[in-house]
């Protein structure tokens, strides 16, 4: 590891953000993000180092304003870190002011809002990334059909976003992010706006999709239960400034069924994380 990395772990000394597999597919290396405002600046992320192994499912949680979304947006290349570096397969995401096209092509992003384009049908929305890449129409269509089947939307290809329910729209958004076969799926509270029942269902589906596409997933949520249910590791960020508070491995075999939530060790992990989160909120009300 680089020198900055070693210093970072030493300074915090408790939290080890390294992937347990020892494979550093995605690396946050001493990432700091400072937002410049009119009256001074805010430190959104302070010296965060974390790595994610290939095919790992990492969940970021923390109270609102802890920088988890900032972290994901930095990884997605939407925000440039003030200091530090993000690497995908050893390749830095940023080269000065420009983003690295090749690294970017490995990332698929799903937002809290589906952000579908209302002027395009489901099929056209799913295939939008391919269209931007200049893929032929017949090929786009074929891929869109394949993906709508994967996300359980067969038969809705010709529908428009306004005709779909919230859960279905989010499925379209997931399909869109998968269309160009990214190796990494970044999800920012994708099911936050859905009702509990739909959310459970989507969480099951997501595991299946991650399995089928062999994707590495970085997932942001504010639900502890969701985090423990989905994650191989749950990363808790503390707020103001955002930094790693703890990293909790979750041992259940994937794909998981909903009944793991009733097991004692699941409850124990949730309790422990909730305790940490509450502690953090007391310090940063």
């Amino acid at each position, binding site marked *: 590891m680089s020198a900055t990395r070693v210093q970072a772990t030493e300074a915090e000394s408790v939290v080890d953000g390294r992937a347990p597999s020892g494979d550093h597919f995605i690396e946050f290396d001493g990432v700091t993000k400072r937002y410049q405002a009119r009256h001074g600046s805010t430190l959104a992320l302070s010296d965060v180092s974390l790595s994610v192994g290939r095919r790992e499912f990492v969940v970021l949680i923390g109270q609102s304003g802890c920088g988890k979304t900032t972290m994901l947006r930095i990884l*997605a290349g939407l925000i440039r870190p003030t200091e530090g570096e993000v690497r995908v397969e050893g390749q830095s995401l940023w080269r000065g002011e420009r983003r690295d096209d090749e690294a970017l092509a490995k990332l698929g992003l799903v937002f809290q809002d589906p952000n579908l384009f209302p002027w395009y049908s489901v099929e056209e929305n799913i295939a939008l990334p391919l269209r931007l890449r200049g893929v032929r129409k017949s090929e786009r269509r074929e891929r869109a059909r394949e993906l709508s089947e994967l996300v359980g939307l067969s038969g809705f290809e010709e529908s428009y976003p*306004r005709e779909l329910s919230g859960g279905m729209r989010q499925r379209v958004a997931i399909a869109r992010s998968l269309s160009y076969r990214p190796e990494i799926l970044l999800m920012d509270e994708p099911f936050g706006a859905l009702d509990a029942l739909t959310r459970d269902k989507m969480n099951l589906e997501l595991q299946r999709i991650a399995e089928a596409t062999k994707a590495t997933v970085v997932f942001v949520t504010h639900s502890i239960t969701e985090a423990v249910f989905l994650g191989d590791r749950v990363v808790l960020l503390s707020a103001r400034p955002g930094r790693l508070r703890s990293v909790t491995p979750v041992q259940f075999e994937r794909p998981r069924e909903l009944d793991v939530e009733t097991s004692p060790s699941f409850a124990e992990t949730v309790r422990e994380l909730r305790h940490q989160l509450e502690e953090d909120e007391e310090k940063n009300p």
Partner: protein
Amino acid sequence: MRDLLRGRLLPWISTLIVLVLVVIVWKLIIVVFDVSEFVLPQPEDVAAGIVDVVKTDGFWGHVRTTLVETLVGFGIALVLGVALGAVLGRIAWLERALRPVIVASQVVPKVALIPLFIVWFGFGVTSKIVIAAMLAFFPIMLNVLLGVRSVETGHRDVMRSLNAGKWATFWRLEYHSTLPYVFAGMEIGIVFAIIGSVVGEYLGGNQGLGYLIVVSLNALNAEQLFAVIVILTLIGLGLFLAVIGLKRFMIPWHESVVGADQASS
């Protein structure tokens, strides 16, 4: 059947009822207050007046003049309004620099400038085109300006995360997001363009339906005056519906179109 009655047929039936009521009230007023036919002619006389006017020599020439002025003026307003609105929407400092001018130009009662345009551009068709264009320009430009600004941040993030270039972002996102605003501006603009050309014709020249209104007034020909007003209303309605039709064709996905469909089906 009941749904059909309530949805598609209802507006037609209600319009018919309103028209009949208007005619009844119209006749009542004439009878009850004993209104002179020079002030308010009988509805059937106005109907006869329409037939007479349409048969008059040169009537279609007047219609054509007004239509040409309105459409050319509107076309110029559309091109300039979209272009300037798009530029100002994208270049924030330019918009800020020009904001006082834009506000001032909005506050000026533009109809008051019409005599000036007639002095500058003469009594012919040109001055009316300029007036129609000026009136239609502002609602279009301001709507486009707003539209360019209103592209959703989430949508922009999608394009950015997909590493889309400027051109792709324009065609796949900005163009589609702004179109509804262009149409909102056009709906107001087309009506303003007609007002512009007709008022322009009041004040100068010897062509167009506005001129015909002035002639009817001078001749104290109330029937013909009313007849021309009805014809102008029909032309206005036709142009407005043409814009709405184009909108339904161009942005069938938009709420303003979908909402109207749901209400009528």
